[in-house]
């Protein structure tokens, strides 16, 4: 069996190329599960914004890599109750960028205050939609191969 075809190296799956089965969506936004749950692995947690970020941080510490930015959307943590991220499913060597990004997102939480009581259902629906559209834009990139 030759190791090349027409002089080319065999196709190698590089680290940045992830497949549908390689990643999970971690979220506290029920709309993400509703819209994407049939086609993607969605792990939905019924927790607040800070808790979901801490949960993501714990996963980063255990070797899962972030595939999207946790401060997506210029919607500040504390100004939105929902956050969704894409992460690798399997564990990888420690990824410093993931650690820095999630730590910075948790620290940014302290600058803002989100009080769920202040928002009516219409506003909460807007928050869910915005978070979903942000993760959807990442899925378009992730699923483009």
């Amino acid at each position, binding site marked *: 069996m030759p190791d090349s075809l027409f002089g080319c190296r065999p196709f190698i799956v590089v680290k*940045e190329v992830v497949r549908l089965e390689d990643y999970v969506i971690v979220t506290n936004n029920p709309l993400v599960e509703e819209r994407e749950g049939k086609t993607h692995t969605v792990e939905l947690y019924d927790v607040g914004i800070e808790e979901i970020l801490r949960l993501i941080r714990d996963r980063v510490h255990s070797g899962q890599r*972030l*595939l*999207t*930015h946790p*401060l*997506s*959307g*210029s*919607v*500040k943590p504390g*100004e939105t109750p929902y956050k969704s991220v*894409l992460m690798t499913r399997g564990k990888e060597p420690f990824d410093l*960028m993931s650690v*820095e*990004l999630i730590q*910075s*997102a948790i*620290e*940014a939480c*302290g*600058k803002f*205050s989100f*009080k769920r009581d*202040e*928002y009516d259902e*219409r*506003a909460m629906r*807007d*928050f869910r*939609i*915005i978070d979903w*559209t*942000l*993760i*959807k*834009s*990442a899925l*378009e*990139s*992730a699923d483009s191969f």
Partner: protein
Amino acid sequence: MKLEMGYIHISDIEFSSESKIENGKLYVSTDALKALVLEDEKLKDVSFDIARPGESVRITPVKDVIEPRVKVEGKGGVFPGIISKVDTVGSGKTYALKGMAVVTAGKIVGFQEGVIDMTGPGADYTPFSKLINLVMVCEPVDEIEPHEYEKAVRIAGFKAAAYIGELAKSLTPDETKVYETETIKEGMAKYPDLPRVAYVHMLQSQGLLHDTYVYGVDAKQILPTMLNPTECMDGAIVSGNCVSACDKNPTYVHQNNPVVHDLLEEHGKTINFVCHIVTNENVYLADKQRSSDWTAKLCKMLDLDGVIVSQEGFGNPDTDLIMNCKKIEAEGIKTVIITDEYAGRDGKSQSLADADAAADAVVTAGNANQVVVLPKLDKVIGTLDYITKIAGASENTLREDGSLEVEIQVITGATNEVGFTTLSAR
């Protein structure tokens, strides 16, 4: 490439049965404009109002601000790839109506849209309070998704601005300015001793309701690319961005980007303004790496000496900003970055979500968490329904006397990151 900009100064706007511009005054037929806007079946109604500088008027929630323009000579039309054919713009002759704007408003994403006060302390924080604003409040049909509503309002604003701009086509401009740039080779020969400088312009591109369009292409899908500086000036970049009122770039800001203007002013005097590079701010981390690699690569290939980088937004874009800065500096090219800050109400917190030692030349557009009290104004165009819910407001926002205690991030353009703002240390 050579672009002649003709400026027609508008001194007032009045509703009338006939649309025309006479002696600097714009007369607008709301019937004609309404018919144009309601061509879109996603919109069921639109109302128009006029807000003049100094009037006791608050406009909210603001979506976009657009300067009416018309292409008089040369290739292309206004807003190419969107409402005109996709021909390359940036040459020939274009007229702009100065002193006025079309402002689109509507409850698209209640918590993320902005405020323009036409008087009082709020007016001091937004450049758009200095314009005579023709405001369109667009009502969608029932059961519409927010991104469909955004698109309908976005296109309605461009159509209205193009309709008004067209009224100026046969007029003689009050003022004319010519902008001319050379090709890469010509520029090198003409200005061999001047530092070679480019502008890296980061465009909001995080998904639906956070979009920017370049010749009608969603910037999320572009690879970093080069524009002639006059292309942006001629309407090649438009906003589809609904979020972050204080530091988003409305279409008006793209049309009048001060970084582009100032670099062109210095072109041939203190610098050689080589080109305008546009890049994106995607959510997906591999996209960030690809785009920042490509931006740095283009800067290197152009043998630049210096680069100005501006971002749009906070958080996610901070990472792109620092990646661009680090990688361009690593190529031996000096960078200056322009950003705003979210440093907390007391200004003591970390300003950006990312940082690096390479970012040692930073221009700030101000602290978006700064608190300001906006007095009650006599008239509201739009609705105050969302005023306690938009980013930078709180349950204490609406005070007993009707005044609003808010962070300046609620004000459209307050900390604009291309410097189209009124805040200054001077």
